[in-house]
């Protein structure tokens, strides 16, 4: 993956072609649905793609990108989403002020991140197994907290107006959820590609031993990465809860596989196949456009999943087959 770039012109051409798979697919999908699905190009529809499909998934997928960048994976992003949502809803229900409830939501997510950090950086368990364990424990904890998995609804009357700001508000004509997603994406891109922390995280993913031998605190960086992942995912949980005004136990898992898919599809954009925020965002955009386009073209709801899967498969196959010549 991170091999020294080949110098041959042919090799370079192949490499460029493999990196183009994602952008080309994005344009092709856009043109295809513009032609096939009436109403796809309407401004209202494109905005709905961004608000309904793109926002939450992009936040979770950006979180996932940090874990993948550090050479790991986080299967418990959905758990962080859920814990944030639960803490947020519980405090609002108890009549606490919204800002405090929001902070508690971030705290709920951070608990998941800290737990992962102890397992991965402290004990040294592989991220896949550690976060799988967290996912399973989190599932039981949520069911215990909710009497076997009952949703926690907020009564419409008792909810303060400020509660809806994150999910339904708009600022300067733009929906707040979209602004939050944009902010998360921008910050994440800067942190991952431009900051010292991001460069060390990337180095951990490429060759952890080198980081250790360079005298950098490997474990601290690993721990910080998984806490950061959970915090970002928690933001998605807060926006989600503010939109739907209900906490449904274990619902955050719905993001998991798409977030992994987007983060890995995004790696095809990078010269050395590294995870990167721009690629992840394009990956999420691709998934969102396909989901919406299939819906708008009036295709049977069930074929949509088949279409999405086939498309991801094609992008991956094109990119992988041409990359490792």
């Amino acid at each position: 993956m991170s091999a020294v770039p080949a110098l041959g012109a042919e090799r370079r051409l192949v490499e460029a072609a493999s990196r183009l798979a994602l952008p080309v697919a994005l344009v092709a999908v856009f043109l295809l649905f513009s032609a096939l699905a009436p109403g796809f190009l309407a401004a209202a529809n494109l905005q709905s793609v961004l608000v309904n499909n793109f926002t939450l998934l992009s936040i979770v997928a950006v979180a996932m990108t940090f874990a993948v960048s550090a050479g790991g994976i986080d299967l418990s992003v959905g758990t962080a989403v859920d814990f944030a949502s639960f803490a947020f809803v519980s405090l609002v229900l108890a009549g606490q002020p919204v800002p405090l409830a929001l902070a508690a939501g971030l705290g709920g997510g951070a608990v998941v991140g800290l737990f992962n950090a102890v397992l991965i950086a402290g004990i040294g368990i592989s991220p896949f197994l550690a976060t799988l364990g967290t996912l399973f424990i989190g599932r039981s904890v949520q069911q215990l907290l909710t009497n076997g998995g009952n949703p926690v609804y907020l009564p419409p009357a008792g909810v303060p107006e400020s509660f809806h700001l994150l999910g339904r508000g708009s600022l300067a004509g733009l929906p707040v959820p979209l602004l939050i997603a944009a902010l998360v994406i921008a910050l994440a891109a800067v942190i991952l590609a431009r900051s010292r922390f991001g460069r060390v995280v990337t180095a951990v993913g490429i060759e952890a031993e080198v980081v250790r031998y360079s005298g950098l605190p490997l474990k601290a960086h690993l721990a910080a990465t998984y806490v950061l992942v959970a915090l970002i995912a928690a933001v998605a949980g807060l926006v989600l809860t503010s939109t739907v005004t209900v906490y449904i136990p274990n619902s955050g898992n719905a993001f998991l596989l798409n977030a992994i898919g987007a983060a890995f599809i995004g790696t095809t954009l990078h010269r050395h196949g590294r995870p990167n925020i721009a690629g992840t965002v394009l990956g999420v955009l691709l998934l969102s456009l396909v989901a919406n386009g299939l819906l708008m073209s009036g295709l049977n709801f069930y074929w949509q999943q088949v279409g999405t899967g086939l498309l991801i498969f094609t992008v991956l196959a094109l990119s992988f087959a041409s990359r490792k010549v």
Partner: protein
Amino acid sequence: MLVDTALLVPASARADTPSPQKTTVSQGLAGIALRGGALAVFVTVFVLFAFASPIFLTPFNLGNILAQSAISGVLAIGLTVVIIAGGGNVVSGGIDLSLAANMGLSAAVYAALSQAGQVDGVAVLAALGTGLAIGAVNALAVTWARIVPLLATLAVMNVVGGLELVLTQNTVIPAITPLLESLSGSGPFGIPALAYVLLGFALITAVVVQATPLGLRLYAVGEFPEAARASGLALKRFIAGSFLFSGLSGGIAGILSAAYLSGSTTGAGELLLPVVVTALLGQVFSRRLVPTITGTLLSALFVGVLINGFQLLNLSSTLVSGIQGLLILLVVSATTLLRPKEG
């Protein structure tokens, strides 16, 4: 990886040969404690349930546990073979995320054909064929298109899950056929037929994987690909073969699930993570903490015992997933901490 240097010793020989070069006495002892620990936990839980509930130890109930574990057991065994051939690194190594969806589609194909009036033979072949076809797609994606198994099978999972929805329109397709009736009925000694299927499937796979040259090569391909390549093994064929086998297990599990539930049901995908955990947890029940078929069988039965015991004691079965999670973390922490530290 380095604890497994003795992997190339056949399973049958491993039992008697003393610990290999690298393991020191203390690590050996720690290892024994750990492995014994997993079994001890299993036995303790078993004995506790036996005392706590008068029904637990009856042959009828034990047969029930086996039958309830049959579907996830067969799937986890399929997954174990993929993990053996692909190597232990879950992100870049062997994994098959499409297994649960595969089971759902195979069950739907079987149920749909039975309802359309096809005889059992046709429906069974079609279900197994569906599983094999899914395995073949995975095999091609991993060996020919060179997509990382985690991603390839993730995409295939989406496609297969979607196809199941298209076929069933997200409804239950009932199916009652002679085969399903005999599968969901009792076999000899009043033990459910599903139990025999699980034990038979596990036995055959265990013999092939743990006691034949083929199985030995499978381990070599997964753990020491370079060495395996150097000694002339066609790595791609083994990896492709492992995905074909897991595809077939998905097909078999599909038929079992059609028998257990009298038709196809929705939501097969929810079985995915429990199956992954069962397969990974299985490593604790093996002598060298590597994936084995017998280990996976024990792990599947352990989960089955937990679920069953909780039901008998009227405890919330929601705790089962938490216990599974805790166990996997405990076990993996213990292995990680006990492993020799050097490079």
